């Protein structure tokens, strides 16, 4: 029987090629989108699950009134957790140190991006394989370093026989010697813990270790639970721990607490380092629903075409029923047909997705691989079959319903219910398509806004370079003078923080800033401070709103003056003009001499923050600063070469990294631009599938109305009026879809 069904189905496909092609191609496109998005979702959900004890590892963070939730924790926390919390079996610290300059020869330093200080327990908690070296010993002694094969190749040109080798580490003005203690496998792409090199925790400078302070927050702390059930008692045990180590006044809540979350949930939590489309649950839902939208549109095509073609299939239904077929047998035959279509589409969609995966990765900024994992493929096959059943269910019920007595004597009249359903589905389909089109337009409009929005400063042709070391910062006036001597350089400014790179925030209670502050709130105000120079304002073309900028002629400006932005004035309850001349104390006393217009210091997505500008460097700061250079538009390459050679004077072996300020801001929107392109792409796919279905329906309608068209032509109808007649019905439906979609979108 099954053979008979399959034969009938395949021959039916062959006889109605265009119908089958529309269905399979539409489904396959939808499936390809679904497969790719499933790969992405699967990858996102698989983060950190590869650790053997992943279900028992928790990430611990600090929650404070002032800062909210953060991953930095006090140094003593890890030990205290093991000693005082019964739920914790082990705990380990990891500190991020960012990029390192390493070399095997004391020259030609290579920049290694991602370095972490880790403790000996590291390999006991996390399942990263140590390819060479001893997991228990490698991290016990200071100045030990473990390399990934790629980092090793970068530094030594090879990755074997390196245990015991020396590595030179340039840290601002000094060079430290490290010893290779192991080679560790590269962290998998679906690990939140990423590294190029691991340093033994004891290598970390003692000051930064801050071993006894419960008030300093730096290392990330990971805990290993005694059992998965122990997670329930963590919260209470943390409360006890806070009580034991912080002084809490009677009747008051402690101003900070600790929280934990399972490692497996870290990637999609607010604490993860979101970049692009990874680590953000919202994108998971967004792309998941887009995939379902598209698949829904493809299913609608199937239902529409299958029910529209009823007149072709009813004879078969009549014959089979006459010969003794039960309705259930016919239903399973038709369901089988739709499942066959969906499975063929799955195979073709699979091929499309394999071919499209590199483009998908480029677009999504992901590194997904086609999963050869059989369970994943079977799972997709199951989904494809379910989709086949869902799409085929109504057509199967509808077709199998006809009584043989009427259909075999050609008395069959198509039911109005199916035609109503078809019309409704076309309307839904186009409503979905129009919603996607409108969403795409909205996304594009927002992107244009970010492009056209005034940043508050002019960053064109301004290149920014991080100074190589503190010597360069300390002698910055000389460096500026030298650079100004070149014709390809128009203006030079050296600042501690620049737009797009304000890393420091300081909070002050209003009453400590000034007695004349006009704000009722006693909450601390967070400022973004930067040390600037006389040229900063002119170079970035930032306008003054009130007062004046720093002047070389007034010596008081050098160490007792502040310029703030409008936002800072507002935060302190002052109009820009009122602020001028006010005595303030931002760690050091001074007078406000000017207010500048607001400018974006991070991305456009963030609100403008209060900013303070000053010429002097507070004693407590340690910065190496940034060099901003405005280049002549026609001599950009030459200008860059000059900057490079000047900076090499300070640190010959350091690589030269530069960024154009306007491009840096644009780069912050990389994700949004990608999102825009993705939405447009999916919209196009959805429209193609919807149009395919509509084409199928209208071609079929035209075929069935051949006689009517002939009669009309005989009676004198022109081609135009016939085209209008045939298009009218469908145009009405598409228009209705549009009208419905606009308010929804």
């Amino acid at each position, binding site marked *: 029987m099954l053979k008979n069904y399959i034969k009938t189905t395949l021959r039916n496909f062959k006889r109605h090629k265009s119908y089958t092609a529309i269905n399979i191609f539409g489904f396959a496109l939808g499936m390809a989108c679904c497969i790719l998005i499933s790969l992405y979702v699967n990858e996102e959900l698989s983060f950190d699950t590869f650790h053997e004890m992943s279900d028992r590892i928790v990430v611990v963070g600090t929650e404070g009134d002032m800062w909210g939730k953060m991953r930095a924790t006090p140094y003593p926390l890890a030990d205290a957790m093991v000693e005082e919390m019964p739920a914790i079996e082990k705990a380990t610290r990891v500190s991020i140190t960012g990029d390192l300059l390493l070399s095997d020869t004391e020259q030609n330093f290579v920049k290694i991006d991602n370095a972490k200080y880790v403790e000996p327990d590291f390999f006991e908690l996390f399942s990263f394989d140590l390819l060479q070296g001893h997991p228990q010993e490698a991290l016990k002694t200071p100045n030990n370093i473990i390399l990934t094969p790629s980092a090793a190749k970068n530094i030594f040109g090879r990755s074997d026989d390196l245990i015991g080798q020396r590595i030179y580490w340039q840290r601002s003005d000094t060079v430290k010697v490290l010893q290779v203690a192991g080679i560790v496998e590269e962290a998998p792409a679906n690990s939140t813990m990423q590294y190029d090199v691991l340093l033994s925790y004891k290598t970390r400078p003692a000051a930064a270790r801050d071993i006894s302070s419960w008030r300093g927050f730096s290392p990330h702390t990971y805990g290993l639970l005694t059992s998965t059930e122990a997670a329930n008692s963590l919260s209470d045990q943390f409360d006890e721990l806070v009580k034991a180590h912080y002084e809490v006044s009677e009747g008051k809540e402690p101003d900070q607490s600790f929280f934990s979350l399972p490692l497996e949930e870290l990637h999609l939590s607010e604490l993860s380092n979101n970049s692009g489309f990874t680590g953000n649950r919202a994108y998971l839902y967004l792309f998941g629903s887009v995939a379902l939208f598209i698949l829904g549109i493809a299913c609608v095509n199937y239902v529409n075409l299958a029910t529209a073609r009823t007149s072709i299939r009813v004879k078969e239904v009549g014959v089979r029923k*006459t*010969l*003794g077929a*039960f309705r259930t047998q016919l239903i399973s035959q038709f369901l089988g047909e739709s499942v066959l279509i969906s499975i063929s589409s799955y195979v073709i969609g699979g091929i499309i997705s394999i071919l499209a995966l590199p483009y998908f990765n480029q677009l999504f900024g992901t590194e997904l691989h086609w999963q050869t994992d059989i369970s994943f493929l079977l799972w997709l096959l199951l989904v494809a079959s379910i989709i086949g059943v869902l799409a085929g269910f109504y057509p199967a019920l509808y077709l199998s319903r006809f009584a043989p*007595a009427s259909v075999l004597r050609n008395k069959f009249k198509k039911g109005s219910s199916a035609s109503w359903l078809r019309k409704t589905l076309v309307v839904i389909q186009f409503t979905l398509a129009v919603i996607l089109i409108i969403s795409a337009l909205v996304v594009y409009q927002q992107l244009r806004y970010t492009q056209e929005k005034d940043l508050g400063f002019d960053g064109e042709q301004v290149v920014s370079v991080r100074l190589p070391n503190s010597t360069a910062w300390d002698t910055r006036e000389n460096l500026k003078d030298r650079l100004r001597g070149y014709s390809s350089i128009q203006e030079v400014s050296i600042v501690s923080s620049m737009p797009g790179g304000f890393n420091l925030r300081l909070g002050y209670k209003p009453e400590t800033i000034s007695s004349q502050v006009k704000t009722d709130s006693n909450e601390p105000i967070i400022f973004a401070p930067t040390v600037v120079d006389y040229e900063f304002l002119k170079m970035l073309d930032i306008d003054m709103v009130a007062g004046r900028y720093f002047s070389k002629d007034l010596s008081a400006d050098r160490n007792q003056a502040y310029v703030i932005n409008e936002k800072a004035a507002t935060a302190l309850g002052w109009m820009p003009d009122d602020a001028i001349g006010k005595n303030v104390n931002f760690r050091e006393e001074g007078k406000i001499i000017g207010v500048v217009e607001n400018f974006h210091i991070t991305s456009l997505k963030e609100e403008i923050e209060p900013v303070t500008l000053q010429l002097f460097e507070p004693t407590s700061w340690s910065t190496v600063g940034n060099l901003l250079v405005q280049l002549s538009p026609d001599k950009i390459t030459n200008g860059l070469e000059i900057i490079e050679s000047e900076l090499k004077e300070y640190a010959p072996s350091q690589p030269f990294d530069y960024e154009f300020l306007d491009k840096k801001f644009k780069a912050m929107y990389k994700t949004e631009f990608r999102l825009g392109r993705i939405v447009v792409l999916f919209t196009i796919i959805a429209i193609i599938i919807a149009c395919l279905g509509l084409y199928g329906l209208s071609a079929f309608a035209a075929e069935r109305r051949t006689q009517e068209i002939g009669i009309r032509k005989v009676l004198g109808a022109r081609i135009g009026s016939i085209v209008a007649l045939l298009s009218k019905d469908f145009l009405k439906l598409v228009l209705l879809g549009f009208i419905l979609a606009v308010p929804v979108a």
Partner: protein
Amino acid sequence: MIKTNNLKKVYTTDEVETTALNGIDLEISEGEFCAIMGPSGCGKSTLLNILGLLDNPTEGTYQFLDYEVSDKSERERARLRKGNIGFVFQSFNLIDELTVFENVELPLLYLGMPEDERKEKAEAAIDRMNMIHRRNHFPQQLSGGQQQRVAISRAVVANAKLILADEPTGNLDSDHGDEVMKLLAELNDQGTTIVMVTHSPHDAGYAEHTINLFDGQIVQEEVEDGFHV
């Protein structure tokens, strides 16, 4: 084999009631060749559908092989039809996607017969109609007469006791029509009961029992040994 009593069929469409059959009393014995005649719309095909268990009567009783079947569900009727009743239609009603062999094999498939047996029976039935050389052809590749021969093969393949033929020669020229009628007569000679709806007095001449319908009622009934009015 067939016995109906006061059989009525009323169709209700758009609030209009149409009486297609109005009090049909009929008896057809096993081995008979019965022709049902009458003008268009007199209820011939409705009667054939009810006799063939494709439809239920609105009123009255129908005994098929001594079973009362007038109130049976679609599923039960389908079960009774299988293997007992074969159909031959004016427009052949072969499935276009299936070959001659597959079309003939279909009733046996629904009877759940094993493949070997199916093959043997289907080939015998096709051979009986002299169509074995066309066993792998599709219906569109055959002439009308050939298609009807395939349809007859399909009707007899499961050894049906009753063959219902609805204007079997209506779409054929006279030569092919005669050929089909001879085949039916031959089957009847071999013991199969045949009930045939026809417009053609020539075809009706093959039958030994003729029923004339008008407006849903039997107006004349003729059996070889005399008249009933």
